């Protein structure tokens, strides 16, 4: 009986959670796009062409590997003004941002 009840809950949560999580993923991407434009943009410029922080346009990031970009976002750059975003963003968020930066044109 107990086991059956758990399965019921699990089955129900799959039904409930799956569609919602698919939606919230794209909603999350929209949030990340917004974050990139406005919050990263507060130092790097809203068009990411640079400001107090360096340019994040694809041509200017060519020399940096995906992993280097991932680490710079997650850990920040010690000694520079780039803060660690690890406390606010998940690893998958950061991977998505790195991919997004490669595409350019905000």
């Amino acid at each position: 009986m107990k086991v059956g009840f758990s399965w019921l809950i699990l089955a129900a949560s799959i039904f409930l959670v799956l569609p919602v999580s698919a939606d919230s993923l794209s909603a999350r991407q929209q949030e990340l796009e917004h974050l990139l434009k406005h919050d990263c943009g507060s130092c790097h410029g809203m068009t990411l062409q640079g400001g107090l922080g360096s340019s994040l346009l694809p041509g200017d990031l060519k020399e940096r590997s995906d992993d280097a970009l991932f680490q710079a976002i997650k850990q920040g750059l010690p000694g520079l003004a780039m803060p660690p975003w690890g406390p606010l963003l998940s690893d998958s968020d950061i991977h998505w941002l790195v991919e997004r930066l490669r595409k350019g044109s905000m």
Partner: protein
Amino acid sequence: MKRRTVLSSLGVLVGASTLSACAPLSNELQFNAAPALSLRGTGDLAVAIARADGKVAIIDTSQEKIIAEVPGLGDLSHASIVFSRDARFAFVFGRDGGLTRIDILEQKITHRVIQGGNSIGGAISQDGSLVAVSNYKPGGVKVFSSADLTQVADIPCGSKTVGLVDAPGQRFVFSLWDKNEIWIADFSKSPFEITRFEDIGRNPYDALITPNGRYYMAGLFGEDGMAQLDLWHLEKGVKRVLPNYGRGEEKLPVYKMPHLEGWAIASGRAFIPAVGRHEVLILDTRTWQEVGRIPVLGQPVFVMARPDGRQIWVNFAHPDNSHIQVFDSETLEPLEHLQPGLGVLHMEFSPRGESVWVSVRDKHQINQYDTESFQLKTQLSLPSPSGIFMTARAHMIGL
């Protein structure tokens, strides 16, 4: 829609009064066309930036509405404005290096130049004749005639420049982010003269000047404390203020640099945003010693005193930028906690402080609050608003 209607009727009235100046008209028509709307002061007007759309809105703060929008200003993701001494012209400094002169009454651009690759802000000289712009790319400062934006001077310095202010004596003062210096450009001399102060502290990120124009203080990102220059006594050099602040404490991440322009001085005390700490620092303005701290809910960006000095208003960096905290400047007790929405980017008081205008970026709104009751008085629609600038700034030292 409503605004457009108002605008077009305004256009008709302006047109009619222009006509009356050129051609003889009947007395009746002249009387009717008395230019009540076309003749007006600018003292109750403000200019607000719509950062994502490259335009500004002109706000009539008495009628509490947007009376015009002026587009075509380029990238305004970080923008600021100073005013001509007659408070008729606004100079808009845009992120893309654009410097634009707007006629607030005619509601149009009069001059525009792309003076650099990437600029951050500017100031207008004591006599109103010069506008200086500080640049990230290619760095340095450029100076223009405020009448027509022709270039008057180029001051390269091999660094991004920040914290550009005007100072008494027809001087501009600014800091070098990459080179840890403060420079004074003295335009009372011809040709202008530069005075340099080296090793002022690592990475000055912004600066302020006291309302009387005497002390220039640069906030340091790369180390604790602030670099202070007494403009009455340059021979004394740069002095470090708050040298021990935060020593040994781990800094919290800074997701947006604090702004020092518009800092707060009230009852002999200065209130300054801490960097990397969720605190407002309090300095005694006679001794410049730290006399207290106010714990706040995030990294403060703007710490501003109501013009009478009675209240201190604080907004915050991401991820706390939906909040405003208000404190009593005497007791330091919290008075109010407002949550207008995500992206509270700027707060501008009316010149005598009865109300404050707040830009709420993600709600695409500018909110006006009564500063006594904290009640919301007005909401204006503007896409992604950021800085709001009252024309009263025309008459303040430092801006």
